[in-house]
């Protein structure tokens, strides 16, 4: 992946939002239980070294744990589906939050 774009003279400073700033703008309704999981815990522990779910997730839902199953902050989920495609082991258990819960966009 690219290194940081070198700053060019006279380029205006643009606000650099953190993922927390970003997620703060999103309206959610919590379903109270995770709609995401891993299918087989052993696959993360034994086969996965590079946490591609963590790299690809745009919402900081998947978080790497040392040598184990990633933690899943399902409350952040934007329901984009990226992780279900990203996991090279097909080990992401992915459902929609029940009854319309989860993300609710105001603009889209």
């Amino acid at each position, binding site marked *: 992946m690219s290194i940081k774009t070198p700053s060019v003279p006279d380029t*205006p400073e643009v606000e650099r939002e953190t993922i927390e700033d970003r997620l703060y703008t999103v309206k959610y309704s919590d379903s109270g239980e995770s709609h995401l999981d891993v299918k087989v815990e052993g696959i993360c522990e034994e086969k996965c070294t590079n946490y591609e779910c963590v790299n690809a*997730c745009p919402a900081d839902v998947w978080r790497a744990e040392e040598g184990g199953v990633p933690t899943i902050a399902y409350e952040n989920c934007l329901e984009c589906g990226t992780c279900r495609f990203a996991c090279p082991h097909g080990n992401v258990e992915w459902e*929609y939050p029940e009854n319309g819960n989860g993300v609710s966009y105001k603009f889209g």
Partner: protein
Amino acid sequence: MSETPNYDNMYDAIVVGAGLAGSTAALTMARDGLDVIMIERGPSPGTKNVFGGVLYTPRIRELTDFEDAPKERYVAKKTYSMLSEEGDETSMSIAPSSWREEPHNDSWMVLRRDFDEWFAEQAVDAGATLITETTVTDLIKENGEIVGVETDRPDGELRAPVVVLAEGANSLVSEAADLKQQDDRDNVAVSVKEVRKYDREKIEDRFHLDGDAGLAAHYFGDGACGDAVGGGFLYTNKRTVSIGVVYSIEDAARTDQTPDEVLEEFKQHPAVAPLVRGGRMVEYSAHAIPEGGPDSMPELVHDGAVIVGDAAGLVLNSGIHLEGTNMAVESGYHAGRAVADALAQGRTDAAALASYETDLRDSYVVENLDHYGWFMDTAAEEKEFLFDDLPRALGEAGDAYFKMDNTPKDEHVSEAKSRILDATGGWLGAAKKAWKFRKMLS
């Protein structure tokens, strides 16, 4: 959460999802006199939807009083810019005078939250029923034929002769029922977007817009989305600007910069930063986009069901053309007509519904997918040239060509040429590349 009334077999067709494809199918069928129920998982249509930002409207304009639709700005100008990581920008701008006249080339910036709700209402006005906050979890099959859906409501089974699957990019129901396979990750892109709010005047001054005119800006090269196959975009709305990046999940998975970080880098590029400075981010969103082209289109017609829109993989990326909303609408329209014809014959088997696929194949939708199907694979093969070497070479060539010093211009011209030829691998390389990408502009 209320009890679901028993709608079993009260409807001729069930539509899964009230996005563009689903609402078009429901509207088309309801106008044909069918009893249709649309099942939407969001609190209202549009609340779960994300797109880049342009709605293409030729068919919608035929089907609705489109003047009443909630729109932002029409596309008065398109720009395409190559950005290098070092900060170079090489751009082309297109603003035909005809785009400023009705119907504005049928290209409008909209916000899905507003538009999808309005569009679903058109189907409801035509007689369709809409239920929200309800997720279809499975299909009901009997003797190999699809006869209804399971939902997450209590007593949530609902039967009808035909199901239209308009469930979007994450087609869990179609996949679970073996109507399609999950796409490979190199055929799916991740897109992240932020909507930033400004004063209306600020937007019009900054982008040289007036009235309802708007700008659709596209960015390529590794200044736009890092070392990945993809690009950046910027669309002007009335009071907001949408800015985002979209790139292959294959690349997103293999690199350790997350999509939101890639978006931050894009915003810092000197070609982009002045366009998005200030303002306030009012929403962040993300979605997967099926970009696999014709080869990853699933079987569209099944016994008792058809697949439309994103679920059918109907997204076009030719490098120049970035379309999907028009294709979703077109597929919903043809599917709706095919269902009405099949039901008129009292049949719902795949053969009876086959005119959906035939009509879609005869339309521009599959024609365009077939014509440009080569692009995404070729772009991935030529990633380094297309997204890294070329944007830098163009920037350097521009620098050389216009150089102010005390040498004659022919030296500058030959220096500019050599920058481009270095990147393409000489004249022969340039010819090969030109041949490889010849269909991009045809």
